[in-house]
């Protein structure tokens, strides 16, 4: 670590997404902020602090040898689990009928966001250390399964089923890239499917969301409203958008316009061009992140960089597909862009770790 080398492609992708994010968070949240807090800049100011902090942390993480994460993973995992338990106690902060946050002064931290990161680090560490046992035998999968089930349970309890399912998905992705035989993956999939189906069906509002997804126009005034408003926002934007700050959807038409549905605001104000730019930056990030993983000095580095890259990439895919009505509504933020400190921090740390792997890449 005598001198720090930052991969320019990843840095450009991250900066591009983050700057677009902070600007659009301001545009999307100003009126809501004014109504709710009598301060146009309420959300913007917080996000800006997180962005600057996040960039520092990214650079800091880039400077830390990635092996550090592997060695400390047990502590990180234990700490995360403890915090996830504590958040369910009265120490946790409740909003919108869910207890997901710790309030620390003016900011609130969403532990489940960090849990995603920890899952990737843990799986990369665990699986890379047992490469010879992965292709044979089940026993090796027992500890990570327990970890995954525990985290899933705790996050689902908040409740935050979206993130909980995403954690399962991340675990499975890690198993897949770590070379777990297809046969084993199929069994895991067949086991998980009924459980997940039950969890979705057991809550009425989730069925509503599915129905709204299948035919949003029919559920226009109910559960389909948000999706229709999202479509209207995209449509109103056209090719090049109505211009920054000129969008109408964010005037409370579009719920969660500055968080999960921020891509719709981008679509309205910056148009198809803006949407393509965002998707392109994510594509760029993923391709470069995968390239980094393939050039990592060891298998831990490979799994770590690939896992974190996919964590960002899959979230981007899911979020953009949800916002465009290609997947049922699920509360996943758009990495680097959506309002939310924990999400931004998590993405920035992930980017920093990938940058560190990239700096040590044998292929560069």
């Amino acid at each position, binding site marked *: 670590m005598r001198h720090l080398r930052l991969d320019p492609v990843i840095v450009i992708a991250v900066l591009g997404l983050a700057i677009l994010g902070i600007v659009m968070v301001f545009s999307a949240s100003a009126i809501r902020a004014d109504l709710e807090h009598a301060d146009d800049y309420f959300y913007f100011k917080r996000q800006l602090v997180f962005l600057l902090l996040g960039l520092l942390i990214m650079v800091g993480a880039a400077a830390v040898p990635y092996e550090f994460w592997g060695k400390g993973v047990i502590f990180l995992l234990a700490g995360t689990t403890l915090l996830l338990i504590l958040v369910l106690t009265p120490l946790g902060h409740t909003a919108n009928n869910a207890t997901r946050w710790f309030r620390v002064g003016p900011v609130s931290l969403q532990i489940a966001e960090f849990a995603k990161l920890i899952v990737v680090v843990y799986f990369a560490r665990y699986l890379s250390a047992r490469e010879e046992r992965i292709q044979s035998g089940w026993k090796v999968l027992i500890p990570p399964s327990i970890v995954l089930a525990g985290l899933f349970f705790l996050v689902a309890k908040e409740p935050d089923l979206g993130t909980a399912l995403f954690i399962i998905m991340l675990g499975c992705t890690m198993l897949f890239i770590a070379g777990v035989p297809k046969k084993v993956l199929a069994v895991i999939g067949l086991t998980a499917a009924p459980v997940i189906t039950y969890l979705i069906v057991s809550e009425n509002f989730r069925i509503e969301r599915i129905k709204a997804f299948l035919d949003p126009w029919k559920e226009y005034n109910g559960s389909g409203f948000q999706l229709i408003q999202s479509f209207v926002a995209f449509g109103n934007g056209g090719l090049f958008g109505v211009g920054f700050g000129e969008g109408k959807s964010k005037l409370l038409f579009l719920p969660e316009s500055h968080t999960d549905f921020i891509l719709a605001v981008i679509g309205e104000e910056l148009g198809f061009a803006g949407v393509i730019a965002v998707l392109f930056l994510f594509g760029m990030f993923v391709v470069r992140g995968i390239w980094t993983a393939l050039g990592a000095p060891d298998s831990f580095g490979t799994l770590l960089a690939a896992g974190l890259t996919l964590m960002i990439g899959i979230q981007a895919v899911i979020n953009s*597909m949800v916002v465009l009505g290609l997947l049922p509504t699920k509360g996943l933020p758009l990495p680097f862009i959506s309002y939310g400190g924990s999400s931004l921090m998590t993405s920035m740390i992930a980017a920093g770790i990938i940058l560190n792997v990239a700096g040590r890449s044998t292929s560069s």
Partner: protein
Amino acid sequence: MTGKRGHQARWDAVVRARIRFLGALVPLLLLLPAAKAFNLQVQQQEDLARRAERQSQMVERVAPKRGAIIDANGQPLAVSVPVPSVYAEREKVRDKKGAARDLSRVLGISSKTLYERLEKGRGFVWLCRMVEPEAARKVREMGIEGVGLRMESRRYYPNKELAGSVLGFVGTDKGLEGLENSLEEFLRGGDGLRVFDLDARGARMTPVSSWEKAPETGATVQLTLDRNIQFFVEQSLREGCSAIGASAGAAVILESRTGRILAMANYPAFNPNDFSRFDRRFYQNKAIHYVYEPGSTFKVVTIAAALEEKVFDDMDILFCENGRFQVADAHINDHVPHGWLTLSGIISKSSNIGATKVGLELGKETLGKYTRAFGFGRETGVLLPGEARGILREAKGWTRVDLANIAFGQGLGVTPLQMVNAVNTIATGGERLRPFLVEKIMSPSGEVIMHNRPTIQGRVVSRETARTVAKMMEAVTRSGGSGENAAILGYDVAGKTGTAQKFENSRGQYSKEKYIASFAGFVPAADPLITAIVVVDEPRKKIYGGTVAAPIWKDMVVKTLKYLNVSPAPSYRDKVPVSPAAEPRIARVDGVRKVSVAQETVMPDLRGLTLREALGRLAETDSRVKVKGTGVVVEQVPMPGDGMGGPVSLSLQPRGES
């Protein structure tokens, strides 16, 4: 070791392949949202953009200030005053329960109702329209977020009942009855349009954009009505009708030479400020809605037609069959038997038989033609909503009995306004005018939009005929005429009484108890200034036009002449003040007085007669008659042969029961 190394290399290859696979899959998956974005933003762009436009704005109509209605002298009859209304923007009301509870105390609406208004639906809602200033002040003081006051225009009728049924009233948004209804397009003005940006919950965003189109105040309507004359007429009609227990009444005064309606009154009246407290039937303007059989007032038309057609002249005399005359299978009766009468006598004594004979001589075609020419069976053109045309069958279809009946005013339906306009045709010297109520309509800037001018709708009879008929009508109000109660000291009054039985649709025959008494005439007879009519529906204590309607007519016309400063006729100048002998005649308006007709100074024997027949015998005596029971007269006070003077009371029983 090679095994392990080989194993690791194999594993490494699998890992790299799988990472490459996902590394390619994820960017490819990003093409899906890109494709959908293309679909929405390029292919569906127009539709969705239109939708965005539509849902983000609301056009609010703002009712303009309604134009005023003023009388001929510019006095206000209907004005709009700003009154506060309470509204809510539902999303902005945080504590709906609490707001409903607090407002309920001030607005006098149950908190449950208010809560429902706040809870159901989105955006703007009126909580209570047109509240008292005190309540508005309290609402303002509460300062509940999302609850506000907005000034609305409320219609106010400063003269209360005055001309109520002519003016009509305004509902929440538009004129519902009377002139308020028929002149809606002028009075209403132009809606203002305001565009609001809305949020998704339907709440208006502040700030409000400025007017898309400013509201335009409605036009001012000036009527021909004179508030003072209207007041006299309503007063006379009210006092007269209530004194004799009539169920309803209507009166109209026209300016003879122009057709301007100076007054148009109804009894019972209603107060348009409080219209909802009155039954619907009070809203009716009987002067134009009420269709009745005119009875003897119509004889003016028959005689005028005969003179114009020269079927008779004013020197001819007709035999009136001593009170009973058969036409086909019907009997025509006179209340008082007459022998030979001139045409003037037929008018002044109101002989049905005389009018029948004139009518039969004229023939149905000719009488039908004149009836139409005098304006019956069609709208007068006064431009009030729902003006009745009356009932006038095609003359071709009349039987001989129909012809006989119509000649003395039964078997056709007219409105008071039609009748007074027909009489006014005699007053104008034979030209029928269009009666009108609206003098002019002026825009808020003072520009005259419409100015009504007197309109002659045709010459009906020659000036000479009209003069002759007018002379005959003067005799009606002279001593011995059926309308002497309408005589006004100092003026020559031309008029005609009318008493018609009401046709009871339910029973299909003429009622024996229900009458319509009327009097129509003009003054001064030689150079008419005003023409007026009084129609009284179902008078109870007295029934005749001469005793019921004529005194009311006189009362209102005297006041009007005085108000208009009309100087007495030259021939009366030296007789004013009047001789003491004449004084009581003028003073008596209650109808209880010494009989002035010589042959009826003693009480006739009425026993065995039907009520109608009995009342017919008492017709010219102007006695107040009290009636008990139905059927035929079985007892009478005074007894036959006794002198008359006091009230007459009759007891009746169904025939065959005594």
